[in-house]
């Protein structure tokens, strides 16, 4: 039993990481209909930014997290203004080509600027190690990840349901024309949402370093997992992304623990099964 609880705990932590990495993409793909495959590249940039701040400016790890969020979010608006905006009405293939190109450029730039080796994170001592109540290993860093993921999920849902901005966003998504007619600046709302989504990706990248490492291939490696979560969760849904991320995280860890020969395959099998059951994703709105 303790094994199962341990696996659930580790899976939940991994799922939270996937959630933070993917929620931005789900929201922007669902709302703006723009296939931004460079989302994982933003995550990677957030990771490298965090590492640079720790190594060059000697900042503590926790302080780098909000900075990664804000700066990557701001940086993404440059891409949005200059590149993405031109392709909002274009076909999905064009968007995919553009954003994949951006991913490749980012990977090469990061390799050039930071080298191809693994990057390190200086964890504060209270985040290292674990405590073991009832024989279950609860790592401090994983507890931290779960806490951060939960806070972000709650904040996003609250933001969508209870704030004016959230209401404007929901209105713009439901009926863009009507929203514009009511005086809502739809472009600004979407741009801000995009920035928040990309900022969350950057935050996820910084959080990921200690769990899964950081090197220039992070963007391409994690793109697959992010797309997995987004497609299973359903586009445009925070709750869907959360459920999908947790489900996939737990399946991955449980699969590797109980059926190591199948290992990484389990997560893909779960994805296929869920998509067969719900092609639009768990909480998807469009078919």
């Amino acid at each position, binding site marked *: 039993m303790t094994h199962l609880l341990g696996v659930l705990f580790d899976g939940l932590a991994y799922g939270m990481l996937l959630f933070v990495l993917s929620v931005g993409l789900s929201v922007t793909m669902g709302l703006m209909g723009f296939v931004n495959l460079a989302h994982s590249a933003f995550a990677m940039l957030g990771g490298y930014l965090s590492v640079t701040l720790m190594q060059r400016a000697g900042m503590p790890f926790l302080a780098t997290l909000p900075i990664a969020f804000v700066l990557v979010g701001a940086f993404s608006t440059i891409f949005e203004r200059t590149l993405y905006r031109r392709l909002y009405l274009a076909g999905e293939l064009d968007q995919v080509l553009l954003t994949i190109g951006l991913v490749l450029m980012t990977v090469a730039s990061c390799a050039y600027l930071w080298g191809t080796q693994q990057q*390190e994170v200086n964890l504060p001592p209270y985040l290292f190690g*674990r405590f073991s109540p009832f024989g279950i*290993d609860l790592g401090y860093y994983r507890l931290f990840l779960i806490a951060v993921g939960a806070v972000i999920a709650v904040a996003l849902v609250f933001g969508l349901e209870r704030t004016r901005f959230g209401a404007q966003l929901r209105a713009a998504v439901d009926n863009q024309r009507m929203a514009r007619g009511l005086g809502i600046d739809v472009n600004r709302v979407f741009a801000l949402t995009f920035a928040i989504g990309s900022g969350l990706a950057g935050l996820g990248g910084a959080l990921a370093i200690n769990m899964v490492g950081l090197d220039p291939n992070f963007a391409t*490696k994690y793109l697959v997992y992010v797309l997995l979560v987004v497609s299973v969760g359903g586009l445009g849904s925070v709750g869907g992304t959360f459920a999908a991320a947790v489900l996939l995280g737990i399946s991955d*860890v*449980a699969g590797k623990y109980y059926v190591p020969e199948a290992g990484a395959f389990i997560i893909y099998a779960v994805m296929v099964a869920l998509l067969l059951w719900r092609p639009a994703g768990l909480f998807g709105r469009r078919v």
Partner: protein
Amino acid sequence: MHRIASGLLGGLALAALAAWAPSVHAADTIKIGFIAEFSGAFADASREMDDGIKLYMKEHGDTVAGKKIEIIRRDTGGPKPEEAKRLAQELIVRDNVDFLVGFVVTPNALAVADVITQAKKPTVIMNAATSIITAKSPYFVRVSFTVPQVTAPLAVWATKNGVKQAYTMVSDYGPGIDAETSFKNAFEANGGTVVGSVRMPLTSPEFSAYAQKVKDLSPQAIFVFVPSNDQPTQLMKTFAERGLTTSTIKIIATGDVTEDAVLEQEGDAALGLITSHHYSYAHDSQLNRQFVAAFTKEYGALRPDFLAVGGYDGMAAIYAVIEKLKGDVSDPEKVMAAFKGLRIESPRGPIVIDPETRDVIQTVYIRKVERVDGKLVNAEFDKIENVKDPGK
């Protein structure tokens, strides 16, 4: 008109002379095609190899027996066998190279086997460590190591030092499976029992499930093999996080896990780890100290590791062969004969090219990760000499 004609004639003559001149020069040059994975996950490894080659040429000059050595570098872009084959073909047919060298990863080396057999081109493998490569073509020579060659002695050493049970964790690809098989065979042949094994996906970034499983099983020892790019650091950190590195479980591995270039990054998580390999940056010999000093002086950033030594010794072997043949490398059979039985004093220790298999025979060292002068090193404390590749 007259002036234009003579001008044209003069220009034509000059062009002809210029075209002729390189071909005259070419007879005094020995060209070496260097194929490696300069971009992608193995970029750092390829760079180490390249630096080893450059250092050797800097120390010994770029002329041997009156011939100038020219290196032509080509990038496969990662483990891409089709690309490696194409590059080998180009180098042989278009650039007329006399030797091929390099190959960090096995698939690329295997891909060129047919090409070099057909073209009869001597090829020096400076890293790729799967046993079977040298058997695929009579024109392969290896100066690096093979995974079974460094794994089997570790298994034997373990049984002689009180380890009776082991759980193996390897990456699920060629060299990983090689390691698992050779460890199991050698370990069980010497009285040990393998209590379980797991193959981890090569792209798996997340080791928590595997680490937890091992912790729950609590075997006497764990044998680990993961390729030396990004996996060792993550694996060791996951182990350390779960208290595996400080528990009573003995962790033994091949040297890829504590590879000199990434050892510092693993930090204290790697302390006390016992590994086996053919080269340690801390190897105590005059030649190695000179090698390390010269390498750090020239190429600072990364420590020299077994990849750099592979490049360095590969060039040493080629230079020795060229001198033996007094600069005439036109007959591939004579070249291969010159390689067989060749003895070289390497920064790692002495090495010999096996005349039968064209593979390397060398000393395998058992090392422990220790902190010396504030830096983490693989400190050698035992050795097994004249180890042949058991895979043959």
